[in-house]
């Protein structure tokens, strides 16, 4: 028998799971496609200490478990699959996943973002040999060595502070004079005597034979270049949206973020809604993603009511 879902939610971070909670409470029986690794970006970040209502820091996994359990309690269903292709035919969205095809009246895209790389040709050669995107995972390999952290956001500041537990010296390299990180994170880094700063400098190249031995930096103002010896380069320069599979369905901006209408989660395709980091190039916070997930759910409800 042909089954057409009311709503399929692609993504299982704070946005997708909040959309699941709200649509489940509205008796729409949402189906969540969690992807291969449930939990979204939050699952790979540091401990969460700024989510409202949680006085004490909470492990990222526990927070996402709470979201998920809440959604499940209201009747959300989950599958460990990703959308591989999507098209609209006869007013219904046909989603191709790893196990077959799904049909749905509405789609909520909450697939989030993934860590950006430096895009220096030599960078991939040094993955696991000095270049890393995860200070928590790889920091202990750099005991008593000198390392760089590239970036000016909260992750870069947190990574730098964390790495001082192991490294002899940590240098933060950032391309702009302005830091995107919140003042509290900048202060933590500035107070740390093992942290030095190179601002505004850009990483031009990574040097080494078998492993990282140094980098070439260029000053963003003077264009002066300089070689700096180091054993590690930790990259924390932000994220890119995971919207590739939806690009033929909805409009995206020049950076690849899905465009949504002001004060809504409606995309350029009626019946498709987007929320979370997939359409947020600026704030990228779990609490905002959750709020947008709520908006998407309410937009879905209204769309389905109007359709009837």
């Amino acid at each position: 028998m042909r089954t057409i879902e009311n709503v399929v939610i692609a993504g299982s971070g704070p946005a997708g799971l909040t959309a699941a909670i709200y649509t489940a409470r509205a008796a729409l029986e949402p189906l969540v496609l969690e992807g291969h690794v449930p939990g979204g970006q939050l699952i790979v970040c540091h401990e969460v200490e700024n989510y409202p209502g949680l006085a004490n820091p909470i492990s990222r996994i526990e927070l996402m478990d709470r979201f998920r359990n809440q959604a499940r309690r209201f009747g959300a269903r989950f599958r460990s699959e990703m959308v591989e292709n999507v098209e609209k035919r006869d007013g219904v969205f046909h989603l191709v996943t790893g196990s077959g095809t799904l049909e749905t009246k509405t789609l909520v895209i909450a697939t989030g973002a993934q860590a950006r790389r430096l895009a220096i040709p030599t960078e991939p050669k040094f993955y696991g040999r000095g270049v890393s995107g995860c200070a928590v995972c790889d920091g202990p390999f750099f005991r008593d060595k000198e390392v760089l952290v590239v970036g000016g956001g909260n992750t870069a500041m947190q990574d730098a502070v964390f790495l001082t537990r192991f490294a002899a010296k940590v240098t933060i390299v950032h391309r702009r004079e302005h830091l995107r990180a919140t003042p509290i994170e900048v202060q933590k880094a500035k107070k740390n005597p093992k942290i030095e700063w190179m601002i505004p400098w850009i990483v031009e190249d990574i040097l080494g034979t078998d492993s990282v031995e140094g980098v070439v930096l260029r000053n963003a103002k003077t264009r002066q270049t300089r070689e700096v010896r180091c054993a590690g380069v930790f990259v924390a320069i932000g994220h890119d949206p995971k919207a590739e599979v939806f690009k033929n369905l909805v409009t995206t901006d020049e950076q690849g973020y899905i465009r949504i209408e002001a004060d809504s989660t409606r995309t350029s395709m009626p019946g498709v809604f987007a929320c979370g980091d997939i359409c947020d190039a600026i704030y990228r916070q779990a609490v905002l993603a959750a709020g947008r997930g709520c908006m998407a759910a309410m937009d879905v409800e209204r769309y389905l009511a109007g359709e009837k």
Partner: protein
Amino acid sequence: MLRTNLKHLETNEAIREALAEHENVVICCGRMGPMCVPVYCVLEELEREYAHVAFYDQDFDIPAAGFVRNLPECRSFMGLPFTVYFKNGQVAAATTSLQRKSQIEKILEAQFGKPAEMVKE
């Protein structure tokens, strides 16, 4: 604890069984970090195609991970995950940190051969 859909190896006994029961085995040993998660995702995708290969992951921080961590082939590694390919119980290849799908496929085909469907084509 790893949040993936791969089979997890949590004890030394489970590792021994996996290597004894399967000719071709991949063990990806890491955490839920940004360099590890993309590798798990690729392995989950490839698990569907490479039916002749047994894919596992393993939490880097559990005692049983000492098996992978202490392999001579992983001694110089400086980034998670450590991904080790075993042929008849012996290490055939090992990689460190993030790997693209094409890199993983290349190793799988070189060490274990192409999936049956691809060979027919």
